[in-house]
């Protein structure tokens, strides 16, 4: 039996993890993720989860423990944010290269210095090449559901790749919403116990794990990992369809369009700002402006085909980035712009950088972005809600 509860994003993630029945959780608390791991540790302490909870001394240890537990076939979860993600980043390619299906929540937060605890997406962009699936969610319900789906995705024997679920810091992690908590039996039937992959540690069939590979072999391992990453698109869509059949909710595949079919101008968003942008698109439509929206759910693997299908006919497209790749442009823009050009897109693209360090992205900001798209004027990279002149 499912039940509705008033949860913030952190608690929603914790419930998603609880329902997924992991064997091991190894995590270190860091703002704004703290509430998620606190909730999980209380679940374990109260006997509501049958799980080993490792109170590790650092994020680097959290990843090391996660790699260890996943190497023996245990369903493993960890969570982090910001500098914590950067601290554990040395271990991220170990996990993905060893094809370990770890699921991690990353509460998106800014990167020092200056020190700042509020939300943007600089942390996730730092580790975009770590070999992890990068998934962005829009609200707490999607966060809960995607934890369950992510275990299913990561543990698929064709994928065997760790998944990072990006949840916008504070905007999602600390904001309360009405969330449907699915019944345990329903989740159990959707997400059966982990099936141990043949390449993991096994005393019946001993193997060397995390071997050295010289220049004769290393490249083949990496290309195999790269090619297998593309299988995520198909599997994610299949998992989402199955999820909808069981739970009555769908969150879509790699990218999702909103009023984009006949749109002249389209804004591409990731994460929680999508909700605000939907409201703006609706109000612009009421004024007769053909505005549309594309919510990018996956940044790795990058859904070039889906994106072109959703955007191709628009005359201008704006990409909203909550990050800067210093000395260049927003990272999401780099990816979207490159893929659209490769597909032969002939419209103009703009990069809108906003919301760094927790600064609000208002409806008025998004209206300004659409104005820039309609007029197709101004610099390719534009900054919003600045407190001073450039």
């Amino acid at each position, binding site marked *: 039996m499912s039940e509705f509860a008033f949860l913030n994003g952190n608690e929603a993630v914790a419930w998603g993890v609880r329902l997924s029945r992991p064997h091991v959780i190894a995590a270190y608390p860091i703002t704004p993720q703290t509430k998620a791991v606190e909730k999980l540790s209380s679940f374990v302490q109260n006997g509501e989860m049958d799980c080993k909870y490792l109170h590790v001394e650092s994020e680097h240890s959290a990843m090391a423990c996660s790699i260890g537990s996943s190497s023996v076939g245990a369903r493993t979860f960890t969570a982090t944010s910001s500098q914590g993600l950067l601290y554990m980043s040395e271990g991220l390619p170990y996990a993905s*290269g060893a094809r370990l299906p770890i699921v991690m929540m990353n509460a998106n937060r800014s990167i020092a210095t200056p020190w700042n605890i509020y939300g943007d997406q600089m942390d996730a962009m730092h580790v975009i090449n770590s070999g992890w699936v990068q998934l962005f969610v829009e609200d707490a319900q999607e966060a809960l559901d995607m934890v369950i789906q992510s275990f299913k995705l990561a543990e698929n024997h064709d994928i065997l790749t760790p998944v990072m679920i990006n949840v916008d810091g504070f905007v999602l992690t600390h904001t309360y919403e009405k969330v449907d908590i699915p019944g345990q039996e329903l989740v159990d039937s959707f997400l059966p116990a982990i099936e141990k992959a043949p390449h993991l540690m096994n005393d019946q069939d001993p193997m060397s794990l995390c071997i050295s590979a010289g220049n004769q072999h290393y490249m083949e391992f990496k290309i195999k990992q790269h090619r297998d990453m593309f299988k995520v698109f198909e599997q994610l869509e299949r998992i989402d369809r199955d999820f909808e059949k069981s739970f009555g909710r769908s969150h879509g595949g790699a990218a999702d369009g909103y009023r984009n079919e006949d749109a002249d101008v389209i804004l591409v968003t990731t994460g929680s700002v999508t909700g605000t942008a939907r409201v703006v698109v609706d109000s612009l439509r009421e004024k007769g402006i053909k505005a549309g929206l594309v919510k990018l759910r996956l940044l790795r693997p990058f859904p070039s085909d889906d994106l072109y299908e959703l955007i191709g006919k628009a005359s201008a497209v704006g990409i909203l980035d909550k990050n800067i790749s210093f000395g260049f442009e927003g990272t999401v823009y780099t990816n979207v712009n490159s893929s659209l050009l490769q597909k032969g897109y002939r419209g103009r693209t703009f990069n809108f950088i906003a919301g760094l360090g927790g600064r609000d992205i208002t409806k008025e900001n998004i209206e300004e972005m659409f104005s820039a798209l309609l007029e197709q004027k101004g610099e390719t990279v534009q900054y919003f809600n600045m407190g001073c002149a450039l």
Partner: protein
Amino acid sequence: MRDFKMSPRPQWNSLSDVPMGSSCSSFHICDANAAWRVFRPVMDYSLCIGCHQCYLLCPDGAIHKEDAKVFHIDYDFCKGCGICAHQCKPGAISMVKEDQA
């Protein structure tokens, strides 16, 4: 003395032959620790004066002493760093590319 030989290299016809992750049946990829070596030290015993510098300074302990002037390099453990060749003042050790050794 051990029978030194290079480890056999697996032949992969397609990516499906590549083992999942970096996990393989033990010693599938390499049966020695030195599979990544590019140059190997080769000894010319006619020049060796038995100073023991190579034996003493090898960081991996990969050089064995049989008698005062006969040293053997365990190529299963030698990583090819070249310290022995650098330290050998009479020039009895030279670094030779693996496929030409």
